[in-house]
């Protein structure tokens, strides 16, 4: 395959497009809401109405507003339909012949869409993830071609470094620095690994990217492989994502058939092969050393770092590990340049980030915004605030490793440093909105139970500490705890945080610590009657009742 071949495919794809296109979301969220049947009916109705020449139906990826699925959008009018049923689908097709469309209209210019950015999700909901031609028609694989022909590996790394891209999996390590480290470490083989073990509950950014635009990740990985000198890549996908696995398999096969992966990529001496590894339900495998153990077919238990994977990774060889979203940013940076990317975001946090907005908020779904966007804009403008006139109390970010940000602090800008200052983290991108009905002690216990269940058991602080912390939180919730338990809770949080082996244990106390920081009164209100803190911290009515007994 040469550049001409690539452009040929793109031209053919563009020319074969009829004037109208109906895009139907077939990502997991809309599929759960029944979009497969909608897609079938759309195709059937087009046939029946003899509209094949004028209208094409495209099975696309995520269109972001998951709570209103199944979503269907029509090109070029941009008409958006939501909660589409198969019967509605027939009426949408009838609309092309002047019939009445019964499907519920959505507003593609509402704040939910208008305030979002489109960098990582540029193709999501527009191209067909199971047809490589549509990715190529959207300039796909051109960045890889130019890199292989016109850039040295050092130039590629320099470009990534200058872009200011930082790891999107949660740790925010500068990507360029990581690439440079792996590139300079000696090894007879090197590996590129894509971490798609998205385990944080309430976070599905990676899944959406893999289901909607898998080739973007493959292209990013191949560029990384060229930059660091690796010929083998692995994608470690969560076992709970069968659709992502299927689409990735399809995508890898298609790219190989066109000579965009495999041996002699773009007729250059560069070989790059990508294999899939499916996880089997272990949250700890999102940790890089545990993930590598799992790729090698072992129990997913972490090992102490150093040595870091960059030095001693898969089979002892230098290994580059990045998150799905990090790789998804790479083709764009190489295509538009580091300066373009560095122009988005804040001084230290460059680019955009995809968040999953869920919980007690009107619009739930996928949200992409430039880093440095105020949290209030995400929750209240894009998210539309609390449903049914409720009051939003806090937003939980960063999953079981993150914390809760109270509503008073919603003017905080969402970037790595600001969220860390508040005792939370941006993490991989989950944002769960909590309202008045959610008790924060219960929320803390929920995450502690999660960490307790998911602790791999290798180190004692995490294995035993999370159990004790869960027990203490339960005692507090049951009203059996006193001052002494609160002191113990804090001391134990500190111990588990500082002595656990890997990120799972080190971050397990975060939700508890952050709720203690901002919602201490909720803890104190639950303490045994009579304890001094409880008398001070209780709301007036309960305090009087408590004193009276």
């Amino acid at each position, binding site marked *: 395959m040469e550049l001409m071949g690539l452009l040929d495919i793109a031209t053919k794809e563009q020319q074969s497009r009829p004037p109208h296109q109906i895009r139907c979301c077939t990502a997991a969220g809309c599929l759960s809401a029944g979009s497969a049947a909608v897609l079938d009916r759309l195709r059937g109705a087009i046939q029946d109405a003899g509209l094949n020449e004028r209208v094409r139906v495209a099975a696309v990826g995520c269109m972001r507003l998951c709570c209103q699925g199944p979503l269907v959008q029509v090109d070029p009018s941009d008409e958006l339909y939501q909660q589409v049923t198969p019967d509605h689908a027939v009426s949408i097709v009838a609309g092309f012949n002047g019939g009445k469309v019964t499907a519920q209209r959505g507003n593609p210019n509402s704040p939910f869409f208008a305030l979002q950015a489109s960098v990582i999700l540029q193709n999501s909901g527009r191209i067909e993830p199971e047809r490589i031609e549509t990715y190529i028609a959207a300039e796909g694989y051109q960045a890889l071609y130019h890199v292989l022909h016109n850039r040295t590996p050092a130039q590629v790394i320099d470009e990534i470094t200058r872009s200011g891209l930082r790891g999107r999996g949660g740790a925010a390590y500068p990507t360029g620095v990581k690439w440079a480290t792996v590139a300079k470490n000696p090894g007879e083989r090197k590996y590129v690994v894509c971490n798609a073990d998205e385990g944080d509950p309430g976070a599905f950014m990676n899944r959406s990217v893999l289901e909607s635009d898998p080739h973007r990740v493959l292209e990013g990985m191949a560029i990384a492989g060229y930059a660091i000198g690796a010929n083998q890549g692995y994608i470690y996908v969560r076992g709970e994502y069968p659709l992502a696995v299927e689409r990735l398999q399809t995508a890898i096969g298609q790219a190989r058939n066109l000579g965009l992966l495999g041996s002699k990529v773009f007729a250059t001496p560069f070989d790059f092969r990508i294999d899939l590894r499916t996880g089997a*339900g272990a949250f700890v495998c999102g940790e890089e050393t545990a993930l590598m153990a799992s790729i090698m*077919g072992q129990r997913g238990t972490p090992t102490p770092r150093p040595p870091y994977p960059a030095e001693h990774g898969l089979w002892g060889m230098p290994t580059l590990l990045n998150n799905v979203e990090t790789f998804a940013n790479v083709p764009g940076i190489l295509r538009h340049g580091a300066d373009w990317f560095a122009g988005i975001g804040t001084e230290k946090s460059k680019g955009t980030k995809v968040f999953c907005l*869920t919980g007690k908020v009107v619009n739930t779904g996928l949200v992409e915004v430039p880093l440095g966007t105020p949290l209030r804009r995400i929750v209240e403008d894009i998210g539309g605030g609390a449903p049914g006139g409720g009051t939003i109390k806090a937003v939980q970010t960063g999953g079981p490793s993150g914390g809760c940000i109270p509503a008073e602090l919603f003017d905080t800008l969402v970037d790595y440093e600001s969220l860390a200052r508040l005792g939370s983290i941006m993490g991989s991108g989950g944002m769960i909105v909590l309202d008045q009905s959610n008790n924060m002690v219960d929320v803390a216990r929920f995450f502690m139970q999660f960490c307790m269940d998911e602790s791999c058991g290798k180190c004692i602080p995490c294995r035993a500490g999370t159990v004790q912390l869960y027990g203490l939180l339960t005692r507090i919730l049951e009203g059996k705890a006193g001052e002494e338990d609160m002191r113990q809770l804090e001391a134990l949080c500190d111990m588990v945080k500082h002595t656990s082996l890997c990120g799972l244990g080190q971050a397990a106390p975060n939700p508890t610590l952050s709720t203690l920081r901002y919602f201490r009164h909720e803890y104190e209100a639950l303490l045994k009657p009579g304890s001094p803190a409880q008398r001070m911290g209780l709301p007036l009515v309960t305090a009087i009742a408590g004193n009276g007994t």
Partner: protein
Amino acid sequence: MTTLTADMRRKKTATALTPPSGDARFEQLEGTMKRHQYRQDALIEVLHAAQKLFGFLEPPLLHFVARQLKLPPSRVYGVATFYHLFTLTPRGRHSCIICTGTACYVKGANHLLAAVSQAAGVEPGKTTPDGELTLRTVRCLEPCGIAPVAVLDGTVHGHETPETLREQVKGWLSRGTDGST
């Protein structure tokens, strides 16, 4: 655990070595291993395939995998028990999986779980004595936009309430209990 490993040791000579001839599933499993060139690092992929074919991973099957990949049975057993998606016991004819991820949790997943658990008289992770229904929980399936979510026999249902869910699983519960308790 001890009994199972002891069980495996006892059965080692008797059951691990020759799969029943004519069982096409073993041939398919062999095919998977061949595709991975019998590489030991493909163990998890092979176990996925085995569970898909056989429904669950019983000790003789684990032994078969161990022998084919030239791995110690302890290693295969260790891996099979480490990961949540692998099961060493048979599951019921029907399955009800309640998502207990954060988005579902804040929208009341606990009430869904309690409702089915009570109606079926079975703890999460267990199967009803008549083998009809297995109730399980999972940490986030990620269709969070339609939380709370339950997966009934592989089909995802969103916006569930205890009432709708109880109604949906009623037919799977054994005659004798009406499922509406």
